[in-house]
């Protein structure tokens, strides 16, 4: 009888806790990453995930000519530096924030529309034996309004 009560309660706890972790990512994206867009208008899309030290995420998006963009990539404080690279369709690296002291934002515009790939990677502390850190990483795009 007791097990019949414990398991549903634990299951509810699990679901609630999981949703809570994701909700924390949304709160993090809103509070920490959104302000990084500054005067750029956030496009409204939400890209965030919990990443573990050493883990990568990829994002594919088309960017349009004559638009001015800012990408903001933010990781929680408990994570090591978050690296991001922007690649073209031929895998040429167009930008790496490693060359800009792991800057959180990059402003760019395009002469012709392109599909680009962003690779986001949480650096590693490289300390064997330590449990890898994990935390939210958020990717946000903004564009400048045209009158």
């Amino acid at each position, binding site marked *: 009888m007791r097990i019949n009560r414990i398991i549903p309660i634990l299951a509810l706890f699990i679901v609630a806790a999981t949703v809570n972790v994701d909700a924390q990512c949304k709160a993090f994206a809103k509070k920490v990453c959104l302000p990084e867009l500054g005067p750029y208008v956030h496009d409204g899309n939400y*890209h965030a*995930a919990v990443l573990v030290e050493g883990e990568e995420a990829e994002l594919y998006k088309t960017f349009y000519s004559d638009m001015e963009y800012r990408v903001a990539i933010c990781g929680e404080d408990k994570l090591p530096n978050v690296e991001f690279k922007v690649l073209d369709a031929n895998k040429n690296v167009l930008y790496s924030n490693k060359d800009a002291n792991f800057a959180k934002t990059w402003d760019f515009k395009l002469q012709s529309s392109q599909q680009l790939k962003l690779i986001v990677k949480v650096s590693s502390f490289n300390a064997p034996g330590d449990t890898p850190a994990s935390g939210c990483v958020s990717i946000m795009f903004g564009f400048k309004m045209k009158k």
Partner: protein
Amino acid sequence: MNKKYGISSGILLLALLFAGMLIGCSSGGSKAAKDETATVIPKDNTAVYEDIKQAEKIFNALPSPLESAMLIKSAGAKFDNALLNPVGNVSKYVTNKSMALNLGIYTCDLSFASMYEQTQLIIDCMSSAKKMADGLGILKAIEQSKIDELEENINNSEKIMEIVSETFMNSNSYLADNGQPAIAAMVLVGGWIEGLYISTQLVDMKDFNGNKLVGRIIDQKLSIDILFNLLNSSKGNPAVDELLVQIQQLKVVFDKIKITTSAIRPEVDKNTNTTILKSEVKTDMTPEVFKELSTVVEEIRSSFIK
């Protein structure tokens, strides 16, 4: 004794599942299969670190409704109220698929109306989007207080954009965080198709060559594989499978358009600290292909709003 062991095992299993979910949860993107099994990370295990490095979370980002509307406006297109989905249609949408697609459609219409400062339409489209979000159970995505705030700031375009962006983010983050990627994808597809529909309808065939809006429509070819990848991550869902068939029809026409781009040369403008990605592009879309594209888009959009 056996019963005690059974209870402990059940609790242990749930605890492990809990730990796994905490570590492996994802938001807004699809994950490679190997990552889904990642649960507990033992110490001193290089192989596990290598697995983590190879694990991938993939985001397929379609233009948001706000970006689609911005692209239409920046191409110099005129506003046409008749192209928007009538707000009177909201009562027709009772399935999750139709509500998701029309949440995207009304959000695109809302963005379009906002760009052109169509005050009453902004309120109407926001109310329609709210009904779709409420129907999908997206809690607190669009609260009445936001509609009131919109009314209070109806002449403040910056504030309107902020509210539109925030409400759309509330919707798609809720869906991503609550394990509903198929619904989230359908919302994006609805918004993208609406933007494409409005664009194709606004093209003046007498002014086809060199038309900036036609250029924006050609650019959408670059997003078609992103769209497929987005939907394919929820393949097997009957509503998504239906959409894949429709999008395939669209791809057949987009495949007739040629886009050739030169290598990209990044150059930094030191005054603004902005990188300019320089490249030249050649595109080729005949008026016949455009008309075919326009017809397919209209058919797909009609099926979404019926």
